[in-house]
């Protein structure tokens, strides 16, 4: 199919001169035929290859670029600057994970494409995609590639981090076992070339990420084992995936592993230590529940946190879907924060852009909740947090408020306290609070719900990898005070959705401006915001829900439902206070008189216990 399309394009464009490039393992074979027909040599455009393309000042009739995976295509974008211009461009990705919307290219914004004659996007068999463009005059091939790459992952525009120079200027290839074992590698003065974290190619989090993680899994456990010096992933004795030489992981591979309960890493020989670590770091970033023996010394570039998570993981525990998801969340956090492309960029020293800061808007009508609510904010870690506290209907002179504010400020965090006119409706109060916020991102938190210390940083991560305009936590956990019961409802997470609850949402300040902020309503202002955002073509993403618990008070809540309302549908329930371990519940904020004495667990549906 792909060969036919390529040669078809060559003929259709009447190409006298052509450029044929490919990137990623397995892509060379696909372009062999067309290169032969065009009479040119196919170029490998992958990272670490010499870019001997002839220079941007040259122009060809047709540029044909074939990438094996989404990640390969995106990795080729920053390296495509030196490619010649072309009046015809054909691009293919051989395998891409299914996405909620089709990968329509997103054109550049400076009129570069005014000469566009035709553009076409079509699906290839086996989950591939094909794009074909004709222009009156040659355009920059790299720009077309970038337009396709943007369209392929979709979502919000985001800066493209530059390819970081490897810490020691060594490619994965230089650190293969073969090279390391060759004579002369071990330098008498420098010793053994010990790879570091920086040697591991960064994870492209827009491609390899937790999207698509499912709470429900089959009982099967995959094994990452060495087979003839290369890793393969075995499931039930059958090879599910052959790990490429460079250790790269694609979105399609991750999508094919979601049904597994876990993947056991059996630290055998792969092509090289860096390639092996890269594979594991990518799988971890995707939230694939990894287990295995203590990683060997050469796997140190994984980073300490991932190293420990792997060393202390217990496979039998993962049969419990809650423990499995907790493990997955820990893995993805550790991997994305250390190996993520953006995380590395933000942390690359002077010249790097600042990480976006987060403003929390917190609106309360109850003076007695101020202390509790501020404690939930002050425990947030991993993000630069500023808070705006709107006291709706009372002032700082109300009992306990001044102390709570002082306690918050004593922790060195910035806090704006605002006393809006009590007559204002909630939506307007929120808009006012947002106007007083200084962060790039705005998060909304409720005054009586519990939040884990990574709540905001998980939302920031989800925004980064999903590219959504608004992200929210799944509100799975409820604590019903009247029944002294903790519930975990079944809410589908790690996916694009129509709705998230207002208790844990985060969006860009610019997005709020685009949709006109919250509507001036006293009730339902969250839903109205989501409606407005959807109408404007925005996307909403829901990440995991282990980091917050919604409180259902005995009385005085804005909800009117009985406790029974929350008992409907599939769920797991525990007597007493039983949040996820990821909430890292603070003893000061535990509800009820006798906390944590009960450990029962009755499951209606879900994993077999």
């Amino acid at each position, binding site marked *: 199919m792909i060969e036919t399309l390529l040669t078809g394009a060559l003929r259709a464009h009447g190409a006298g001169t052509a450029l044929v490039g490919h990137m990623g393992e397995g892509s060379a074979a696909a372009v062999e035929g067309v290169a032969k027909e065009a009479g040119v040599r196919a170029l490998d455009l992958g990272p670490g290859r010499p870019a001997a393309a002839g220079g941007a000042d040259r122009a060809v009739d047709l540029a044909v670029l074939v990438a094996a995976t989404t990640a390969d295509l995106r990795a080729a974008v920053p390296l495509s600057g030196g490619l010649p211009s072309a009046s015809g461009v054909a691009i293919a990705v051989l395998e891409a994970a299914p996405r909620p919307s089709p990968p329509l290219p997103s054109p550049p914004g400076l009129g570069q494409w005014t000469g566009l004659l035709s553009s076409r996007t079509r699906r290839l068999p086996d989950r591939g995609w094909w794009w074909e463009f004709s222009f009156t005059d040659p355009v920059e091939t790299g720009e077309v590639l970038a337009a396709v790459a943007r369209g392929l992952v979709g979502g919000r525009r985001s800066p493209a981090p530059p390819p970081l120079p490897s810490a020691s200027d060594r490619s994965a290839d230089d650190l293969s076992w073969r090279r390391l074992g060759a004579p002369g590698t071990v330098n008498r003065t420098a010793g053994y070339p010990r790879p570091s974290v920086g040697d591991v190619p960064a994870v492209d989090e827009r491609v390899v990420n937790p999207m698509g993680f499912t709470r429900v899994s089959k009982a099967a456990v995959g094994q990452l084992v060495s087979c003839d010096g290369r890793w393969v992933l075995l499931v039930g004795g059958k090879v599910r995936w052959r790990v490429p030489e460079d250790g790269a992981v694609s979105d399609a591979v991750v999508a094919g592993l979601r049904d597994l309960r876990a993947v056991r890493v059996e630290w055998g020989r792969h092509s090289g230590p860096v390639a092996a670590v890269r594979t594991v770091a990518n799988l971890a970033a995707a939230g694939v529940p990894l287990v295995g023996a203590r990683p060997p010394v050469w796997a140190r570039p994984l980073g300490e946190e991932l190293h420990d998570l792997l060393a202390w993981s217990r496979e039998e525990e993962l049969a419990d879907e809650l423990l499995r998801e907790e493990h997955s969340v820990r893995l993805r956090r550790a991997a994305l924060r250390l190996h993520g492309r953006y995380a590395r960029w933000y942390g690359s020293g002077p010249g790097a852009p600042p990480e976006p800061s987060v403003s929390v808007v917190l609106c309360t009508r109850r003076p007695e909740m101020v202390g509790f609510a501020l404690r939930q904010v002050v425990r947030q870690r991993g993000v630069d947090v500023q808070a705006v506290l709107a006291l709706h209907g009372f002032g700082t002179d109300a009992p306990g408020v001044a102390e709570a504010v002082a306690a918050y400020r004593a922790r060195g965090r910035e806090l704006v306290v605002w006393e809006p006119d009590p007559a204002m409706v909630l939506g307007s109060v929120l808009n006012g609070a947002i106007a007083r916020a200084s962060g790039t991102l705005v998060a909304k938190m409720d005054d009586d719900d519990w939040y884990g210390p990574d709540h905001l940083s998980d939302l920031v991560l989800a925004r980064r990898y999903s590219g959504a305009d608004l992200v929210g936590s799944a509100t799975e956990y409820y604590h019903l005070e009247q029944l002294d019961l903790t519930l975990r409802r079944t809410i589908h997470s790690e996916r694009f959705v129509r709705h998230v609850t207002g208790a844990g949402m985060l969006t860009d300040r610019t997005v709020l401006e685009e949709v006109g902020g919250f509507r001036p309503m006293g009730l339902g202002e969250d839903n109205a915001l989501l409606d407005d955002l959807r109408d404007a073509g925005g996307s909403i993403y829901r990440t995991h829900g282990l980091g917050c618990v919604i409180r259902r008070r005995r009385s005085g809540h804005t909800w009117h439902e009985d406790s*029974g309302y929350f008992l409907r549908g599939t769920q797991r329930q525990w007597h007493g206070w039983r949040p996820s371990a990821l909430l890292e519940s603070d003893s000061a904020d535990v509800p009820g008189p006798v906390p944590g004495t009960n450990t029962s667990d009755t499951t209606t549906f879900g994993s077999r216990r």
Partner: protein
Amino acid sequence: MTLVQSGPVRAPAVPRPLVRRNDYSVLEPPPLGEWEPELSVSVVVPAYGGQEKLDLTLASMAAQSYPGDLTEVVVVDDGSDPALRLPPIRPEHTRIVPSLPGGWARGHAVNSGAAASEADVLLFFDADMIAFREHVEAQMRWHHLADYLAVTGHLRCVDYAPGALDPARVLDAVRRGEPEALAEGPGEELEWLRRAYKRMNGLRSAGHKAFHFFIGGSGSVRREFFEESGGADSDLVLGEDTHLGYRFAQNGAVFVPESETSSWHLGLPQMESRKEEGARFRRPFVGTRLPLIGSGRTLPGRQWQVPRVEAVVDATGARFDEVAATVDALLTGEVCDLRVQLVGEWWRVTPGRHAVLDDPAVHVRLLHEHYRCEPRVEFVQDEPAPDPDVPFRLLITPGQALAPHGVRRMIAQADATNAGLVRATAPGDDLGGPRLERAAAFARARRLGATEDDLDAVVDEVFGVHWLDGESALFTPEKPVEEPPRDWRARLARAEALAESHRARAEGLKSRFRWLTGSRVGRLLCRTIGRG
């Protein structure tokens, strides 16, 4: 582990560790031969005829590793003719007693043996079996760890020809720890039991169903526990072991299969060789007494000796309409297999002239008359103590009328979640909805020292409490299953025809595609069209 217990040997402290559901993993029995037994045991051997096999059984009992001075063997002769006698090779303390008058069969013999003995633990052992050397010891070590265990001994069935073995040989082989010498081949396990042990991790995950796997051949329980459970049902001729297991469960027992050692069952048990007839015999006899087993209970409208649910409705001071709504909903619901205990001031129903509409006791009178001829309603003055034979107890407030499926749904939830208590919210009253109590869980909780104040909390620890939304799950009638459309057959035929035409079209397109891409002419055509 070693047993460290203080006090006089004959009065060991009663250990009661908390075991959740049937997961006895918290108990760690000591390795065989490496502990100090303290409890005495009465091995009760019910027998009817079969002197030859009995001699072999007693010979194996004489070779046990469990201390002889802590062991007595009581053979219960269930009316054999000629009467059974004690052979020369037998344990030191061995007696033979007749079955108590007024009954017969195994259950009655078991009760007779229990009554005639007095050791701390009762171990029932059939008279056609040969115990391996550690058989008694292996079971006894569990009873030192907790006082509410029902332990099942392991057995394998081997072929047996009369006269093939003699007691001296059995004594010798068992004493040397070489029981294999007595049988050809490894023998056959009870296949259904082996599978169940494997599937449920040695019954650890069997939950409330653990009693199904209690078998009579070899099993033991603390004497006090046996007596509290009510003993065996003397009226049962077959299946009395399952029923006994049920009674243990109702009394809060944890079921432990002891499979480290085994025993030979001489020949195939009758229940294995004549399975179908046995099942047919048990169905009415066990079925009417044991509401949790068997398909007979699904018959709509039937009633049995022991109902599945005992509902308690406190009508004291309540209005007639409210109580009647609640009780009538129960009586007409899908689960007919229930009994209603109606608590009220029935003494106020007096004969003689009384005010009619203005009678202060008018609601009491009306209720009494309303249910006077309903055999499933009992009038009681005070809340009755739970019936130990009934597996579920339902408490519901007058005025709450369950939908027809309500009781069935509560039982199904209790079973699906293995819960000991199912509670539901009521509209407008979170805590006031109906509750379904599992007798086994409440018995366990009380045994573990729960008081009326913390009963629910302890039940939550031993079995779990599960909450339901009363309004949607219990009070709103289920949607009726939609009838299939009248013309479904025609619609199906139309859809199939359409599917077939699509398939044909797809095939045509496929072959055209193959021709266009696969042949020289086709490609040429493609190019020509493409240029045009």
